[in-house]
């Protein structure tokens, strides 16, 4: 199906049989699959070139240390191949009107400059592209070309040309045997009729440079947790080799700083981000797991460990007993760099003993909290849904109606409602799909 045919089909969807899912992270994917498996049509809109969301960037999941990609990739393929799912990646929702059973959704198809029906994902174009820029998917640690896929499991496996950096040399056009590249492609807008909407816009990572005292951006060996995830990921820029930024050496001692941009009223994040304690512990464990002989000391500096979920407390205990990870209760006051060794000195009070500590680490990982994405406010106002004081969507009742918004036919799942870990996001995705399918089955009646 060509792009024009696809857009024509989309504008002719039957609203009582179609749901829109905004966001292709693990929660939105789950919602799409569950709706599609019930026989409804699903239009899944994702703003980046690939579905998968943040989970695709992670190396392992807590508390089982399962490989993140191994869980996610089958779901990626399932979404891409499902006959009832129309996947609109590199697209954005720009307007919503109407009511339950008959919404009109405007979707902007950003010009990908590669024809989705022709590109086979062979990658012949890549080596001919002369432009190299930092890869957003690798948190800027690795490089990509102007014609790119963020990661090998990019779904759909279609290349994208980044208009901002492309110099129109047309080398890729010549290299592509399938004639899949069309540099003249323009953005297009399509209006799709749908009966129910699931908002799964996910989260944004807190910008740790808002804490100048923690040295991010100033000292090379202070990185954030998502950069660390990419460093230990086998598909990442270092092919899974844990090393530090200043000299490429394996760090012998690593410090994890918890609660950066969480429970902090001065930075407008008074809430607990729920996931940082556990991913912090997981990353600490992974350092020992990957480099048992080289990494001698791993210390986690925390304010309170909130190991609230199934198997979490056991995982926390195992990190101490089996992996010998040191836990020090105290919010880090400040860090300083040793200019000769580029090691990072952490200054902190051990609040359990009252000692003032100056610990030197070769690498320091800041574990940021999470924020609602900036675009969520725009989508919320289009939908007529309120956001709470933290910027997440309000639900009808957090205990008894956790995925219904106040607007009939509009549902929410994943981190759009509030910080969630992967299991909770998936559960919320399924729940939102079920609620949306009821709206559709009743033809929009509430």
């Amino acid at each position, binding site marked *: 199906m060509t792009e024009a045919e696809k857009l024509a089909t989309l504008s002719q969807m039957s609203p009582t049989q179609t749901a829109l899912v905004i966001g292709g992270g693990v929660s939105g994917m789950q919602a799409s699959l569950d709706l599609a498996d019930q026989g409804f049509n699903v239009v899944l809109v994702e703003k980046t070139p690939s579905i998968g969301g943040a989970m695709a960037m992670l190396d392992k999941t807590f508390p089982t240390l399962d490989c993140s990609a191994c869980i996610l990739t089958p779901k990626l393929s399932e979404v891409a191949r499902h006959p009832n799912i129309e996947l609109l990646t590199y697209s954005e929702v720009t307007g919503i009107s109407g009511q339950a059973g008959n919404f009109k959704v405007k979707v902007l198809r950003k010009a990908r400059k590669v024809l989705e029906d022709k590109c086979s994902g062979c990658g012949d174009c890549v080596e001919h592209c002369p432009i190299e820029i930092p890869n957003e998917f690798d948190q800027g640690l690795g490089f990509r070309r102007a014609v790119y896929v963020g990661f090998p499991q990019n779904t759909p496996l279609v290349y994208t040309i980044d208009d901002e950096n492309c110099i129109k040399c047309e080398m890729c056009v010549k290299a592509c045997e399938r004639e899949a590249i069309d540099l003249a492609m323009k953005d297009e807008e399509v209006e799709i009729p749908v009966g129910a909407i699931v908002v799964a816009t996910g989260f944004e990572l807190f910008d740790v440079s808002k804490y100048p005292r923690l040295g991010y951006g100033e000292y090379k060996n202070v990185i954030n947790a998502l950069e660390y995830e990419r460093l230990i990921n086998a598909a990442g820029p270092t092919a899974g080799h844990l090393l530090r930024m200043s000299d490429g050496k394996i760090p012998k001692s690593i410090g994890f700083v918890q609660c950066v941009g969480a429970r902090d009223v*001065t*930075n407008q994040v008074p809430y607990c981000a729920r996931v940082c304690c556990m991913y912090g512990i997981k990353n600490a464990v992974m350092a020992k797991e990957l480099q048992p002989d080289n990494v001698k000391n791993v210390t986690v500096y925390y*304010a309170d460990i909130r190991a609230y979920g199934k198997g979490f407390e056991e995982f926390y205990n195992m990190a101490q*007993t089996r992996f*010998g990870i040191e836990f020090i209760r105290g919010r880090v006051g400040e860090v300083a760099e040793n200019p000769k060794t580029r090691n990072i000195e952490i200054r*902190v*009070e051990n609040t359990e003993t009252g*000692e003032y500590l100056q610990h030197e680490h070769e690498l320091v990982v800041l574990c940021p909290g999470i924020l609602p994405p900036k675009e969520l406010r725009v989508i919320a106002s289009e939908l007529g849904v309120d956001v709470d004081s933290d910027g997440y969507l309000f639900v009808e009742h957090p205990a008894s109606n956790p995925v219904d918004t106040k607007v009939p036919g509009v549902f929410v799942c994943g981190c759009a409602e509030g910080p969630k870990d992967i299991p909770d996001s998936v559960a919320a995705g399924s729940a939102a799909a079920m609620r949306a399918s009821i709206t559709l089955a009743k033809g929009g009646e509430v």
Partner: protein
Amino acid sequence: MEGSNSDSVRKPKPYRSDVPVRDADVDSAFKYEVADKFGGEGLLRCLKCGACSGGCPVGSVIDYRPRRVLGNVLLGLREQVLVGENLWLCAACFTCEERCVQEVNFTDVVTVLRNMASEEGHAAPGYVKMAKTVMEHGRVSKATGHVGKIREELGLPPFSEPDMEQLHKIIQSSGFLEIIEANEGRESEE
């Protein structure tokens, strides 16, 4: 796999402050008394996370922890807080206020506590001495001939004498005298 740093795990050393806390020493209303005063409002927001102590320049050289002062106030250890010298070690550099994620405003809380301590006759000797100097000379330190000389060399006008009459009126109406009386003799304890 046993790490080299696993021995210290799970065995926190005991607090170096006085333990155990006895019921008789606890005044459970103390924290509200502090929080009700201007500047003390932030006290009840404290999570005791230790960010203040981690950045404290005084704490980096001596055994002084802002978090412990706050903790003792929250525990209700009235005597220990107001009588001890800990309260007077704060350099009022405001680093802790900068670091604090809960807007406790520790420096302001310390000011409240110092005022309370002074009213009860527990002001630090150095502070009493300074207060007396202000009462006598209108300045926190005596004007010396040396400073006068430097000013002359720089072409600056000589110090004007402070208006002691006005100053005494302020001192009398502000309750400053009562506080000095409560701390009578403390300045020589140093």
